């Protein structure tokens, strides 16, 4: 049995997976408590195994069963099998990894906020949402600065983040999509997954350790992204037909006005796709969109190129 485990600082995420055929059975998250006595605070492989065993009730786990992934080469005395960068290197997705905080994260904060932030980091406490949001927003902006070219060739984005409240998750989703829309200059659609369990990284880490052909896996697995987003800068009106995938019969015609300030959600039934026509002052765009989810989000923010 191999358990892919992501560890960063005192935070741990891991998956239970079925090997053949590959399937993620469950995801788990755990945060080691802060230990005042520094000499006892190190997270060892033994402590890690004890924590995983008690959470999963898996007995007889040993260190060879763990596939350790982290953002650093070593966590205390635990050797790492893969660093995040090694895992995502040749995956045809873009990964925006939030939740990893470093010196570069501090540039968005005031002196008082830095003091608060760093004290919480050293104590392993949860950072106030307001400050965390500033840091994550800055990281999101940097992500788009660094990856604007790659967005022309990649059509799936994974946003990884750590433990967060539902309210925080929604805020991050709004900020990410809004920032994304600001960086898009021609109509295009993306599958976006917001991953709070590091599930995607752990999954690909596991597949890599098994020397699986990732492209072949992705072609055969038909993975469905959490959110399908159509970025259409300058679009004002949307006309769309909902069509049943199997019979190809039209189920419904609808029209909506697109609000440029918000995410415009089209709800669609399962097992259907949409034929869509968007018009604006200087644009006309038509496409067919398939999604495994019940909705498509349209963003018209941004400048049309």
């Amino acid at each position, binding site marked *: 049995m191999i358990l892919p485990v992501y560890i960063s600082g005192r935070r741990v995420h891991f998956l239970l997976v079925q090997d053949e055929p590959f399937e993620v059975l469950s995801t788990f998250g755990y945060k080691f408590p802060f230990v*005042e*006595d*520094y*000499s006892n605070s190190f997270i060892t492989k033994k402590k890690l195994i004890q924590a995983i065993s008690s959470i999963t009730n898996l007995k007889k786990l040993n260190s060879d069963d763990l596939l350790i992934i982290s953002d650093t080469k070593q966590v205390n005395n635990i050797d790492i099998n893969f660093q995040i960068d090694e895992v995502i290197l040749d995956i045809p997705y873009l990964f925006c990894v939030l939740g990893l905080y470093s010196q570069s994260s501090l540039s968005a904060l005031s*002196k008082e906020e*830095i*003091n608060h932030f760093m*004290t919480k980091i*050293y104590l392993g406490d949860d950072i106030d949402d307001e400050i965390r949001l500033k840091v994550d927003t800055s990281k999101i902006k940097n992500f788009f600065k660094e990856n604007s070219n790659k967005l022309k060739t990649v059509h799936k984005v994974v946003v990884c983040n750590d433990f967060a409240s539902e309210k925080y998750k929604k805020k991050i989703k709004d900020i990410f999509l809004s920032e994304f829309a600001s960086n898009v200059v021609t109509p295009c659609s993306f599958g976006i997954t917001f991953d709070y369990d590091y599930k995607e990284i752990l999954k690909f880490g596991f597949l890599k350790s098994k020397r699986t052909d990732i492209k072949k896996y992705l072609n055969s697995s038909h993975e469905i992204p959490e959110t399908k987003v159509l970025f259409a800068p300058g679009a004002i009106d949307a006309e769309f037909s909902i069509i049943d995938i199997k019979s190809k019969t039209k189920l419904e015609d609808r029209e909506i006005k697109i609000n440029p300030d918000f995410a415009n959600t089209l709800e669609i039934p399962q097992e259907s796709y949409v034929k869509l026509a968007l018009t604006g002052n200087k644009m006309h765009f038509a496409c067919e969109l398939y999604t495994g989810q019940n909705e498509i989000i349209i963003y018209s923010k941004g400048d049309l190129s």
Partner: protein
Amino acid sequence: MIREGQIAFNSSVFSLFDIPFGYLSVVKEGDKVKAGEQLIVLDKKSETVFIEGFGEIIVKKDDIVKPGDVLCKHKGILKSENMKSGVNGTVLSINDNVIEIKIYNAETQLLDSQTQSTFNSIVKKVEQGKILLSFSAIQLNLLISKGVSSIGNFSYNSQQELSKMAKPKGKDIDMFSESIIVTSHSTIDLYPKLSALGVNGLIVNSVDYEIYDKASVLEVPLGVISGFGDLLEDETLVKWFKSIEGQKVWFDATFNRLVVPSDKCPLWIKTKI
């Protein structure tokens, strides 16, 4: 506010004493040693040189010599001749004209304090050039620290007292020399100023992260008790600091702790490690 478990009585604080090359342990496992008691002595069996002297032998048995020191001299009619030592070492014996010198490196010329136990301790193990000592102590866990661990005399000072000391004079320098200073808050100039005064360590309740991060710490360790910013001191801790003024303490920057040797656990400290 003290964090849960931040201060505790530790019945077995371990410290490692390195036996330098050329020295031998004079203690064994299970020995109880008092503060100031000798732990190591020069190893008489280590390498020696025999030098054939002439004329008048200047050095005496047990003299410590370094390169260039005159060992013997001969006054001739036309000129005088000296024979100088080419090594660091101790004169072990003088037989006729033969001077036996036990060689050791300059680094092994230790001060008494470097060969003695700092605290009342129990010898737990002696092996591979190291002596493992154990003693009971009150341990204050720091949020973070950097620099090299050190031992010094504890001194608590308010921030006002330290900031008044713009131009330290002789008395201040004596007061701070070889001290572990604890204070409420650090300004940007405090750490370099105290380092220049010869303190052995600085521990602050709080400090701006930027100041802590940018402090270039080489030898003198710097530690933080509560966190970053300007945080209130805990009154109980301040009371305790005042009660241990002048006591010899260990600022263990490796394990982020201030170790204050104590035989008993004070009543106000509940948590035990």
